[in-house]
Each structure stands twice: as structure tokens, then as C-alpha cells.
């Protein structure tokens, strides 16, 4: 337990180790730690910025989807309105067509009736003339009394 040269040796050894540590160990490790600290801080800041822009984008996309939904509803409503309009139009068109056809049929029928009536009238007058001829054969010539006969036919 005497004090001897070991003391001096240990002092020198210690100063050498401390010098080495100060020169070659401490600075690179400290630099690396500090550099990584800034990197991590930057990374965290970037992540936060990313989160913020993501939130913004989400809000925007929700807006866009909402607008689109609104537009779609409007378009759907318009389509419905247009469809009922078309149906209504069809109904009116159909009714008109029906009326037109009914009117045409009625006109046809009238025409036919008139034609038939004319024919009948002709036949009746012919029959009348024939009967009158038969009656008057003996007394009246058909040609002399033609004006009276046609007058009679027109009156029928």
C-alpha cells in the first residue's frame, strides 16, 4: 500500500486516455447524435405537415363528393320530371290521335252514309220512275215528263 511510481504511471495513462477520448471518440459520437436529433426533429415536422395536408385533402374530397351527390340528385330529379313530362305528352298525343281517328272514322261513316243515301235516292227515284213509268205507260211518255221527274228526284 506504499505510494510509488504507479501513481505517476496512472496519471500519465489517464491523461493519454482522456486526450484520446477528447480527440477521437467524443466528437464523432456527439456529432452523430446531434445530427440524428435534427433528422428526427425534421422527420417529425414533415410527418405533421403530411398529416395536415392529408386532413385538408380529405376535407376537400368530402366537399367534392358532397357536390357530386347534390348534382346527381338534381339530375335525377330533372330526369324524373322529364320522364313524367314525356308520359304526359304521350298521353295527350294519344288522346289527340284517338280523337283524330274517331273523327276520321265518323267522317268516313258519314261519307258512306251519304253515298248510300245518294245511291238509295237514285234507286228510289229509278224505282219511282219505273213504277211511275209502269203507271203512266199507257198515258205519258217518259221523255216528255223528264223535267218533272228530275225535279221530283231532287226533292227526295
Amino acid at each position: 500500500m506504499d505510494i510509488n511510481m504507479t501513481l505517476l504511471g496512472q496519471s500519465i495513462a489517464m491523461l493519454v486516455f482522456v486526450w484520446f477520448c477528447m480527440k477521437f471518440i467524443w466528437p464523432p459520437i456527439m456529432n452523430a447524435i446531434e445530427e440524428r436529433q435534427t433528422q428526427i426533429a425534421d422527420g417529425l415536422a414533415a410527418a405533421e405537415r403530411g398529416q395536415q395536408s392529408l386532413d385538408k385533402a380529405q376535407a376537400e374530397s368530402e366537399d367534392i363528393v358532397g357536390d357530386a351527390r347534390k348534382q346527381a340528385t338534381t339530375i335525377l330529379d330533372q330526369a324524373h320530371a322529364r320522364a313524367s313530362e314525356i308520359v304526359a305528352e304521350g298521353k295527350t298525343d294519344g288522346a289527340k290521335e284517338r280523337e283524330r281517328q274517331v273523327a276520321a272514322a265518323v267522317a268516313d261513316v258519314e261519307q258512306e252514309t251519304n253515298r248510300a243515301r245518294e245511291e238509295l235516292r237514285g234507286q228510289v227515284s229509278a224505282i219511282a220512275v219505273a213504277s211511275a213509268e209502269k203507271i203512266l205507260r199507257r198515258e205519258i211518255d217518259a221523255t216528255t215528263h223528264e223535267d218533272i221527274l228530275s225535279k221530283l228526284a231532287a226533292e227526295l
Partner: protein
Amino acid sequence: MAAESGHETLTSGDYIAHHLHNLQVCRADGEWVWNHCAGNPMALNVDSMFFSVLLGVVFIWIFGRAAKKASAGTPGKMQAFVEIVVDFIDSSVKDTYHGKSKLIAPLALTIFVWVFFMNLMDLIPVDWLPEVGLMIGIPYLKVVPTTDVNITFGMSIAVFFLVIFYTVKSKGVLGFVKELTLHPIAPPTKGAGLIAAPFIIAFNFILETVALLAKPLSLSLRLFGNMFAGELIFILIAMLGIWQLPLHFAWAVFHVLIVTLQAFIFMMLTVVYLTLAQEEH
């Protein structure tokens, strides 16, 4: 284990004395002499120096490797461990020391890790390395450098000179002298009290010198005392036969605490002394 230590007529006193004996070399009568150097101030404790320098090199190797590979990228496991230690020391130093010196933090790191490694040698069972030494012809081997008072004094004296260096550097030689003489009692500068001034200065000087010298003394004796006592208890436990196993384990667990704590205290007090050296009172 006592009976296995080599000699037939070995008492427990011999066993303990053998374990506490350094392997020494010195020059006597113009020749290099081994182990007959009691009281010779030029002797060298070869075992203490060897393990001390070896552990210092281990420290340099582990941390130097990490420093060489240090980058801001993802650290490896060893790198992360080294960085945890460095960061721990850095924050401890920054809590106390607010100056700009580039020396104090690496000094604290070196002291902490080196003293920790030297203390840790205490946990190697006390007979292992000395027995190996005996086998290869080394008669004495004390494996824990911090149980050698020369080692702890060597470090605390280096710290002491750093304290003086930093005091002179930050306050000048005059400031250093003033610090030794004008505190804690300020001598009167005028009037009749002027006669008393030399006595007050002398009183201050004695007081401050004692305070200054007490720093390295307490620093080294605290570490030495703790480690020496711990080592002695390990040696005593080693003489108990089979019962040493649980006892050794229990004491080793407790000693891990002392090993770390003493390394930390040595480092922290060094930082505190160097901080005080650069601050105005």
C-alpha cells in the same frame, strides 16, 4: 479455496495478505528486482498498471469502434449502447457544467467508463486470475486496479492539476492567488485593521490550501476505500468453503451497485471540482 492457494502451510492471514500484495518491480542495487520493493518509492505495481491500462484500452477500443462507425443513420446495437452512455454522461455534465470547455465531457466519460471497468474486475472470483498467474509463474496478482491506492491517487492528482490549470486559465495566476488568500474572510484594506490583514491572509491561505488538497484526497480515498473494503469482503467470503457460493452471489449483487455508484461519484465530483474552478465564488 484457501487450501488450494499454493502452499501447504497457508493460514487465512497469509491467504489474505497474498491477495492484497501487488506484483511489484523496482531497481535495487543497480538491478531490476521483483517483489522485494517494500517502501521503495520508485517501485511500480505491475499488476495494477497492467489491468488499468488494459481496461483503458478496452474502453478506447469499444468506444473508438463506435466513434469510427458513428453516423446519423440507424445505429447498430453496440452503437446505440455507446450512444446511451455518451448521452447519459453528456446530460450529467450539462446539468452541472455550463462552460465551453471541450475537455470536461470527454474527461467525465473516460473517468466513468474506465473506473467502472476497473471496479468491475472485483466481480471476477478472487482466486481465478491469481491462480492462473501462479500457474504461469506470477507470484502475486491483484486484479482490481482501484483497490490500489496508487491508481486512485494517480487519477485524482491528474484531476487536481486540471483543477489548478482551469482555475489559472479562467481567473489568471493572480485570481488563483486571490482565491487562496482573500477567502473566506476578506482582509480589511484600510484603517487600523490593516495590521491584522497579514494574519487573516495567512489564515485564509491555510484554510483554502487544506480545502484545495482535500479535494483530490477525498476523491481518491473514497473510491479506494469502497473498492478495497469490497475486495476484502470477497476474499473473506472466499475462505468459507461451499458456503461462499450464495454469499458471494449476494455480495456481488450488492457490489454491482457500489461499482457503478463509485464510478459515477468519481466522475460527478470531478465535474463539480472543474466547474468550481471556472466559476466565480
